[in-house]
């Protein structure tokens, strides 16, 4: 196999990187407000970090609320039956 062909296959193209960056950017909340021009690498990293932190906080909050709810649940409650039916499936 010619060397040129194998190196072309194994290099990650600019197109692939750009696609990945676009995908990530489309998930970030601020990207909806911004124009379609690409943010800088540092801006992307900053917003990604900030978004991940806010998702972590949401999970913490939801965990708190779930645990409150579970502590008041007894085995006869409809919630317990929902849990059992999901686990059976």
């Amino acid at each position, binding site marked *: 196999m010619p060397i040129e062909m194998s190196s072309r296959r194994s290099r*990650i193209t600019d197109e692939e990187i750009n696609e990945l960056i676009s995908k990530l950017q489309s998930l970030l909340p601020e990207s909806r407000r911004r124009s379609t021009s690409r943010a800088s690498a540092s801006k992307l990293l900053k917003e990604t970090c900030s*978004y991940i932190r806010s998702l972590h906080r949401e*999970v913490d909050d939801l*965990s708190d609320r*779930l645990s409150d709810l*579970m502590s008041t*649940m007894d085995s006869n409650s409809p919630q317990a*039956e929902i849990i059992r039916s*999901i686990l059976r499936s």
Partner: protein
Amino acid sequence: MQATKSFEQAFLKHLLRGCRLSAVSYKSMSLQERKSAIKLSADVAMASARGGRKWTRGLITKLSKEDEHRSFLQLILGTEYGRLTKPCHGSWKIPRSKKIVRRSLRVCSRRKNNLRAPHGVKSSVLARTLVEKRTHALKRLVPGVESLDGYSLLDETLDYVISLRAQVDLMQKLLTTFEASKLGALSKCTLPERKASFVGK
């Protein structure tokens, strides 16, 4: 971009298994311990429902560090525990992407330093570039990616963010379902129907 239905199913199962396990010892747990148990269950559920990524292995490994957590994890995951903590082999793409990132970082820092650096001051004395700092911050947030850079790092990050969003979404749905059932809204539906609509068949 969304997580798949099989992810949803696996996530819910593992989360609820963890909830049930912790419910057994609820009476003896403090409020904080109960919250941590649910949070732990949610993270384990997310990592195992996704599986096969650097971040999933990193997360399970991180969560297993404490002995008490490890036995809890093994209870929830059963035989999957071994599979999820197996080290994975780096992909051939990684060395290539490091080169690209290093090349672009060198170009960026050279440009920045030419604008900012006073004559005679070494660039090594100056603070690291914003990109490096923030890359390190990202690596602290995404589990298991310490050794990655460039394409691989972004790829894992994207996957992790998608999974986090799914985790939030599903926990929200679960809460809503429970709260609705508390209000007796389910009394009119049969349970199998309710379950089917919940997991979105």
